[in-house]
């Protein structure tokens, strides 16, 4: 029986010629990731195992990005735990403030993930690296602890859903709109326990940043992982960021999929997910009048340089609405610097937005932009659950950077066309 991309990567890392959906395997790990929320629990569990060393000093990444720069004493203590652990075990890829970025933007940028890798991370959006043709998936702290000790993890081999992309994206339409469209179509458990594999000639229309945003939200459809075919765009990115050896896996011709969805990119419209589930999508022309109090542009979904450029293009020479607090947070130090050099930060500040150091902060309702009761935000993040960004009676609308920036100007959810006038 033919195998999907994911199945091939799993088989290879388990030392098996073939794997079948449902099979339980032990696989070797190329990278184990944790952050300042999940790694402290993992460190505690790791210490319980009682092993004195980690399996590999260069195959573990620890990124304090959620409550950092530390928002209070408790988070400072949590960061201290992982900092000391990283120092003790000489973990090479521990990123302190100043080097730190949001983990899922940071790891690919630092060249730590390449095509064909098998990565686990104690953070659900670890699935982001599927954009590079790697198998990556979120796990919990206990798995992280066991992974750091043994270099292995158990997996149930997933079935896959194939998304066959054709056509090109319309104006102001991005990878974010494509993935919101897909989640709206298949639902938040539409891909439960499965892989989402993206393929087809439409890939050409998607930049690497579009693909990161799409793979990032595979978990919002319940998927185990999202993965893209590797093409020149991927290889160019890898060449620019990494010297690690990589392997390109392709699905077999006779690979079996539980479902196949053709997606014509040219038909996708700018899309917004209404509270309180990412599947509650509406196209921009169905949105109606939704007044907002805050706009957040950033996160591991849409805090990359292209996102900054789109936001700047819309905000340039304009003012954000006086009722809208606009918070922009580039995902990594490198993106921050690049945005500075390109003059984007100046555009943001002149438009009346604030620019934050890289942090998860507002995305998970941690700090740096919490919503009060009854307030509404448009965010380029990935989750709009009850209480996600603050008060349980606040609301989060998920959208692309283009819609978010346009909405910041008008004070209600808006199409970029309304403010650019084309």
């Amino acid at each position, binding site marked *: 029986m033919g195998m999907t991309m994911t199945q091939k990567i799993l088989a290879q890392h388990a030392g098996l010629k073939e794997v079948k959906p449902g099979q339980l395997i*032990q696989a070797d790990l190329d990278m184990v990731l944790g952050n300042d929320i999940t790694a402290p629990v993992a460190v505690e569990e790791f210490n319980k195992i009682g092993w004195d060393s980690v399996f590999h000093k260069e195959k573990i990444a620890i990124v304090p990005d959620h409550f950092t720069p530390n928002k209070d004493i408790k988070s400072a203590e949590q960061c201290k735990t992982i900092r000391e652990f990283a120092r003790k075990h000489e973990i090479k890829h521990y990123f302190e403030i100043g080097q730190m970025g949001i983990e899922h933007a940071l790891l690919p940028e630092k060249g730590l993930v390449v095509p064909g890798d098998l990565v686990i991370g104690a953070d659900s959006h670890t699935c982001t690296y599927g954009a590079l043709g790697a198998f990556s998936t979120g796990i919990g702290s206990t798995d992280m*602890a066991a992974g750091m000790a043994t270099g292995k993890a158990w997996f149930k081999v997933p079935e896959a859903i194939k998304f066959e992309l054709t056509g090109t994206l319309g104006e102001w339409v991005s990878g974010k709109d494509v993935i919101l469209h897909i989640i709206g179509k298949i639902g938040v458990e539409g891909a439960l326990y499965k892989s989402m594999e993206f393929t087809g000639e439409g890939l050409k229309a998607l930049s690497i940043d579009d693909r990161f945003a799409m793979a990032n939200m595979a978990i919002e459809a319940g998927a185990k992982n999202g993965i893209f075919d590797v093409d020149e765009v991927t290889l160019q990115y890898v060449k620019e960021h990494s010297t690690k050896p990589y392997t390109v896996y392709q699905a077999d011709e006779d690979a079996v999929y539980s479902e196949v969805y053709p997606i014509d990119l040219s038909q996708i419209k700018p899309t917004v997910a209404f509270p309180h589930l990412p599947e509650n999508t509406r196209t921009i022309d169905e949105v109606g009048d939704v007044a907002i109090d805050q706009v957040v542009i950033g996160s591991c979904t849409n805090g990359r340089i292209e996102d900054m450029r789109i936001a700047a293009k819309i905000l340039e020479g304009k003012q954000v609405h006086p009722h809208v607090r606009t918070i922009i947070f580039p995902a990594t130090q490198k993106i921050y610097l690049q945005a500075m050099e390109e003059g984007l930060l100046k555009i943001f500040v002149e438009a009346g937005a604030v620019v934050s150091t890289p942090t998860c902060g507002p995305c998970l309702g941690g700090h740096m932009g*919490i919503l009060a009761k009854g307030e509404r935000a448009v965010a380029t993040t990935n989750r709009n659950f009850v209480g996600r960004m603050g008060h349980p009676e606040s609301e989060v609308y998920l959208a692309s950077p283009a819609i978010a920036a346009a909405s910041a100007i008008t004070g209600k959810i808006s199409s970029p066309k309304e403010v650019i006038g084309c």
Partner: protein
Amino acid sequence: MLIGKVIKYGDNVDTDVIIPARYLNTSNPLELAKHCMEDIDASFIERVEKGDVMVAGRNFGCGSSREHAPIAIKASGISCIIAVSFARIFYRNAINIGLPILECEDAARAIEEGQQVEVDLANGRIVNRTTGESYKAAPFPEFMQELIKAEGLINYVKKGRAQG
């Protein structure tokens, strides 16, 4: 055998409502438990008694990978969760920390808030003591039974069995 009263929720109970991120600056189970479910059910923590069984709909535990979610539920006194389906990271985390969870659509739909249920994990049998109805959940694959027997992944690894 687990016996307890039922506390019931609907579909898509996500990790943000199980334990909101604003409380994740600690990993202390008892502190986490104080805020368990508070954004969808402020009275949960007052109502819950040791041994109670949580029953829910589809996609329970969707969202983040925070192990704090099953940790908070376990520390609140819940002995077992029965749902139509679980989000995969939550499923994994629950097994890894030794919180029993069962997928059983019929039981999850029929059993109601406040009823008394009895769960036999060894064979997946669920009995609604209030109505007398009984259900059968799918048994765990062998590997997971081993994990449960070892009381979680850490003990399993400790014994060195995961090295092979």
